[in-house]
């Protein structure tokens, strides 16, 4: 009697917990077509990025809801296959900046937060200004929704801070999640200033 019960329990665990994965948030995401836009305001982007805050971090990811709960919390880091909630750093910038998956297209495309897309850019490619929509600026003049990018990380300016730091909206790490955090990237030589080309206000 014990053995059938034991194999029953093991099989349930293997198929449901192991197979489905505790962090299979991507099953809730969609793959709808992006909508072409005419407008890209800094405060519109600021509000869009705000929906990603508190929703978690997923390396290689790019979809989230807006319930302020990380449904992929505690996923093993460094694994795109955990399919948890949230973007990674470059995925968040790509969606907030309304970019195309075609790097030669500088147009504006609205991606619903729950649309699962990461985009073609890494932190380093943002730092280097790769792609038609992406430009470089001097860090000293960077303002709301401009950003700072290094070879390993990228974040967007939510607002300046009073003491020379910045409030940055960023998908930072599995433990950190996505949040508005005070950061000193502006003054760190590893980071360069980046700007979406085509702000309309």
């Amino acid at each position: 009697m014990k053995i059938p019960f034991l194999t029953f329990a093991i099989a349930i665990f293997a198929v449901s917990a192991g197979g489905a994965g505790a962090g299979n948030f991507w099953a809730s995401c969609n793959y709808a077509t992006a909508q072409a836009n005419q407008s890209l305001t800094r405060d519109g982007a600021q509000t869009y990025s705000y929906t990603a805050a508190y929703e978690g971090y997923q390396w290689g990811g790019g979809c989230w809801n807006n319930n302020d709960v990380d449904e992929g919390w505690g996923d093993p880091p460094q694994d795109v296959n955990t399919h948890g909630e949230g973007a990674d750093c470059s995925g968040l910038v790509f969606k907030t900046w309304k970019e195309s998956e075609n790097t030669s297209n500088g147009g504006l495309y609205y991606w619903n937060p729950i649309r699962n897309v990461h985009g073609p850019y890494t932190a380093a490619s943002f730092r280097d200004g790769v792609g038609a929509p992406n430009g470089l600026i001097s860090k000293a003049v960077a303002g709301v929704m401009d950003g700072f990018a290094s070879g390993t990380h990228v974040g967007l300016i939510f607002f300046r801070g009073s003491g020379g730091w910045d409030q940055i909206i960023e998908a930072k790490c599995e433990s950190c999640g996505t949040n508005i955090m005070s950061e000193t990237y502006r003054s760190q030589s590893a980071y360069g200033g980046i700007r979406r080309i085509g702000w309309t206000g």
Partner: protein
Amino acid sequence: MERSRRRRRLLGGALAGGLAGVVTGAVLASAAPAVHEQGEPDIAPTAIIDAAHVPPLLTLPGEPVTLRYAIVCPGGGADPFESACDASGDVHVRPGTTGPFTRLPLRRTADSLDGRYAVDLPSAVARSPDGFSYYAVLSNDAAGVSMTVPAGGPAAPQRSLPLARPVVVRLGRHRFGAVRAADARVVDAPWGSRIGEVGLDGPPGGLEVGPSAFDVAPDGGIVVLDGVNSRLERWADGRVSAVRADVDGAVDDLALAPDGTVYVADGRGRPPLIRHLGRDGRLLDAAPLPERTWSQLRLGPDGPTAQVEPSEQWVPAAPAVPRAEKVSSGRAGRRLADGSDVVVLRTGTGELRVARVVDGRVRTGWQILSDTPLGEVQIAEQVGRRMVVVVKAYSDTADEFVALVLDGQGLVGQFALRSSEWAASAPLARFRLTGHSLYQLGSTPSGAFVDRYDLEVAR
């Protein structure tokens, strides 16, 4: 024969149980996405309201003052983030700190680079010899929701003070590469998880997170927040010890209390949590901060205090302090041991204003001007009759910290320090000042360290 039948029965039972388990598990797994979809309801984006604002904490004589706010709320339509939202707001302002507030409506500007909503203060307010105080009520008009900044409103308004006769310090152009060597390396910890090592974590090719903060006891003992290894490590008298702690690998700040317990500001929560941990690392108490973001956590004469955003005010951070008391105690400066406050404002590209405030008035103020852009102020601490400031000087390709020793006449000492920021840490947790020694938390590809610089500030 009997044994063979028994083996067949066992095998058959195992196969049947396993098959039933596979079927049941598959049903549960296929139901999992539905469970996600029915999880906590999404917050309607239309209901979002938040804000950002940099208060003009210190103003120069004759300087016009424009208050700017970013109001975070979505617009309408299929893309609610395409254009600016339907928002409005009022600033309630008065000269000094007493009397009635005057309501000034914010105007909507064409550009949101530094905040779309603005109001120019009347010169009678902006140039008041007592400075001015104010708060703002900001609304998402489409959803009918509003917020007050600072959260304490008229009970704890923003405070701006005039720097009537600042001591002007001209730093000129910073010469990168001429850094001072440390007097001692008091912590030298390779990456790892053994005692005496500190953890390093991050995705492949991604941001590396190391020890996020540290603090220094009056006797020179060092406590390092090793979040990756969920522990506190202590270096004292040439020995290292560690205790498990209720912390994770997020980028938290830390303040050490005189009794050896520590306060930790959470790097990920909404709102962020302050945890009070015993010497043994066990959680003693925890409570949220009153605003969404913190920039730094310090120990003041009345306990832990944190600077929070969007107000940029310093508020009591001890978990035992009720939220209402926290928001009604917000102040522009950080309280020092002698009861005075230190107020800091980095403005423009290369200007830093610092003031020591006694009884609500600037006792000594400094206007520090640099031809090289200035970044964050890591510390501004009073030592005897002098003020020690550590600020970052940077270009687009180089950066160094600059330590300044100031007195009532000007600059009495200055040196540069290598930035050593290979791994991420809490933003303003890289320096601590204890006695006459400045301590720096740094990192390299091989590990983390704490260096000590002895200051000649005895006078």
